[in-house]
């Protein structure tokens, strides 16, 4: 036994020494989003209460009662609450103050991207080869609700961003109206652990965002309510202990946010997204329509064959134009006929890419893949926007306005693209030429037009308007994102080019709104 123990020691002692020695060199990674500085807006945008809301009839549609005076015992008690916290802050509490100080709109956008990535997984098939459909009323049973695919995600980003914007316009109206200063102004012994601001603190813009986004997320990600609620509480606590808000600032903001959310939830329940999955009759009809037009119809190349993703998403209610405009003005021209020479040439081009990618082209295909378990292409553009907005020192209300413009564009791009996809029902390159293998996952829906291209065209156009100095960069990024789908061997050139054009057109509608919403 002693012999055996010695033996084991001889083997393992050097290994254990090696392991512990080498573990002293850290593998820790500094993630970009945790390096963002505290938000210090260049302007408070104090007049943002008159900016044009999206759904609200006006900033006073939901009332916020006047705050108690700063001389009342109740208010002084609220100030003392902050002081008590500040007397003894833990390391974790300081960390949440720092985290949330980067900005409410920013952080909630990140949380949303995370939820999308978590849920961006297609359901596994049933034993009989059919596929289960996630059920919003039973979100934790497999398949969990939602399957946050690109159209679903675009809609989630848009509703959250739009609701958040309307809520903040209302909050800004009341801020100016009631003009109650921040706690560190009313009492100089309250520390400001965040940059000081002249912006009135009632109702709290942070709590407004937490209230409205928290409610929207509970609709969109009902299985994650605990996670969302924990973030809401953490956010409010961060603002309280940082000296940014007293409790009544937070309560008024959160209540306002929740009320505004209800208006958007009502819209969401009636926007036809709930029926977007379609049914067998519709799926068969779409295929037959393509055959009747003399075209080869798209066929799922998954095994077992999976119904196309959200076949009726093209009929979901848009934000920036009406459904008639979409059909008459936005819908792209038909793709090259599957029997045409142009089609054959484009198919050959895709085959060429599938066999001879340069390392750089392969990297581009992977950089923009945005497939399973990612925040999707709309989420990628949200990340691009957010990282640029961080450097712009926007106020929270301007952040939300810009995010709303971006995300209404992205959702409308999804609607328009899905309309084209199922209207034309065009087959994928690998369906038409079995030699074609892909370097990115093959999406389970028709080819024309490219979703990436449509999203990217729309995003680049509106972002170029928001940050003109980056307009050329955005255009180039959109082109690269578009081309990445040809490199991936999943799209023809026409899909990409027409997708970009369509997206650009949608971005123009957002620009038109941006010029007239009162913020410029």
């Amino acid at each position, binding site marked *: 036994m002693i012999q055996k123990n010695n033996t084991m020691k001889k083997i393992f002692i050097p290994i254990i020494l090696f392991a512990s020695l080498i573990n002293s060199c850290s593998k820790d*990674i500094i993630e970009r989003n945790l390096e963002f500085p505290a938000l210090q807006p260049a302007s408070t945008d104090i007049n943002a209460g008159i900016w044009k809301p999206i759904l609200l009839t006006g900033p006073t549609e939901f009332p916020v009662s006047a705050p108690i005076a700063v001389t009342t015992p109740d208010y002084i008690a609220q100030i003392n609450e902050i002081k008590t916290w500040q007397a003894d802050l833990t390391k974790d509490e300081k960390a949440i103050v720092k985290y949330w100080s980067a900005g409410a709109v920013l952080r909630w956008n990140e949380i949303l991207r*995370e939820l999308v990535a978590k849920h961006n*997984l297609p359901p596994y098939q049933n034993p009989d080869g059919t596929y289960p459909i996630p059920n919003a009323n039973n979100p934790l049973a497999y398949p969990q609700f939602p399957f946050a695919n690109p159209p679903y995600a675009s809609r989630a980003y848009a509703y959250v961003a739009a609701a958040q914007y309307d809520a903040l316009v209302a909050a800004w109206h009341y801020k100016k109206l009631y003009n109650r200063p921040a706690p560190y102004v009313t009492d100089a012994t309250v520390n400001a652990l965040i940059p000081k601001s002249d912006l009135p603190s009632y109702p709290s813009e942070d709590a407004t965002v937490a209230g409205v986004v928290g409610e929207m997320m509970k609709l969109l990600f009902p299985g994650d309510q605990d996670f969302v609620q924990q973030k809401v509480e953490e956010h409010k606590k961060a603002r309280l202990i940082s000296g940014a808000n007293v409790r009544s600032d937070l309560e008024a903001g959160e209540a306002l946010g929740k009320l505004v959310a209800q208006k958007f939830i009502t819209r969401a329940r009636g926007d036809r997204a709930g029926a977007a999955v379609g049914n067998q009759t519709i799926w068969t009809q779409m295929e037959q329509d393509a055959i009747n037009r003399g075209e080869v119809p798209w066929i799922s190349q998954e095994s077992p064959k999976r119904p196309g993703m959200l076949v009726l998403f093209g009929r979901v209610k848009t934000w920036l134009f009406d459904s008639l405009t979409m059909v008459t003005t936005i819908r792209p021209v038909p793709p090259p006929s599957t029997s045409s020479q142009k089609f054959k040439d484009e198919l050959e081009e895709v085959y060429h890419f599938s066999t001879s990618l340069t390392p750089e082209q392969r990297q581009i295909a*992977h950089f923009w893949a945005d497939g*399973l*378990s*990612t925040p999707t292409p709309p989420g990628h553009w949200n990340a691009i926007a957010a990282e640029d907005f961080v450097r712009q020192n926007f106020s929270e209300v301007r952040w939300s306005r810009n995010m709303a413009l971006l995300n209404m564009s992205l959702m409308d791009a999804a609607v328009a693209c899905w309309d084209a996809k199922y209207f034309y029902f065009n087959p994928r390159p690998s369906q038409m030429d079995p030699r074609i293998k892909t370097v990115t996952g*093959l999406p389970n829906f028709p080819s024309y037009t490219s979703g990436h291209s449509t999203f990217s065209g729309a995003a680049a156009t509106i972002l170029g308007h928001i940050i003109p100095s980056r307009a050329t960069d955005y255009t180039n990024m959109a082109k690269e994102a578009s081309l990445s789908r040809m490199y991936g061997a999943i799209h023809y050139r026409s899909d990409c080019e027409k997708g970009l054009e369509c997206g650009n057109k949608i971005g123009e509608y957002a620009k038109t709104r941006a010029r007239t919403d009162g913020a410029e």
Partner: protein
Amino acid sequence: MKKLFATLCFVLGISSACLSQTEIDGIMMEKNGLCIGPMFGYSSWKNYWEGTLKRENLNLGTVSTQMYNVMGNYGITGKLNVLFGLPYVKTKASAGQLNGQEGVQDLSLWIKWKAFSKKIASGRLSYILIGGYSLPVSDYTADFLPMSIGLESKNLSLRGMLDYQRGSWFGTISGTYVRRSNIELDRDAYYTTEMHYTNEVKMPDVASFNIRAGYRDKGLIAEAVFDHWNTLGGFDITRNNMPFPSNEMDLSRIGFNFKYDMPFHPQLSLTGNVMTTIAGRNVGQATGFNAGIFYVIDFTKKKKTDSDDSKK
């Protein structure tokens, strides 16, 4: 002489550098001898473990890996050897649309030191330490599992090994710790169990152990092998997701190796092995074989002298 590698590791179809090309047996190359040769390996799996759930994937079918490897072992002295391995790897899925990948994978280097050797109970006990390093030598991407040809990390490893031989029979036990470097993806954000805004992925380290026993004498080695690989951290593949480089990849395999020196030309030897996966987590249930031909070149000016420490 020596026998080279138990050259099979299937981490969802990729052959992972550390496990597959580490000098893992208790035999040393004699002074100034170079044993070098090509090996071919093939492995495939149809089922894999998604976390702990064993499943198939009709959109992958059978995923196979071919490996063309050049390996060598040089004796600086009979107690100190250096080894290398450089594989070319090719992957393929029999179903679905994903393109197979191919390319030169990782260069592995080892230093193998016989720290002591003494007679115990009419047998000989040896203690050997093996330090290894491997790094990718082409710009393949790890972020395309299960078609990727490797995991991209640079690996520093240390193996401690005890070998006991009595007559023609032997047993070897060894344990390894593998320090894996972070890797960089082609994208700048990714989700594991949470979102990460960086292109860098923290790769958990690995511990493994290996037991082998069998017949070893002049001209012939035949041994049974058990091998276990345990990733110290990482996360499970979520339901119906694709694998990710920093998954918790664990596997246990059993196999059989042989090496046979040609009687008419003892510098020339044939090696081969078969291995199969008996348990795993976030890896393919791979089965495969390797076959190689090795040649010993003696760089000693005069004819070689038998050394006590160098088994031939």
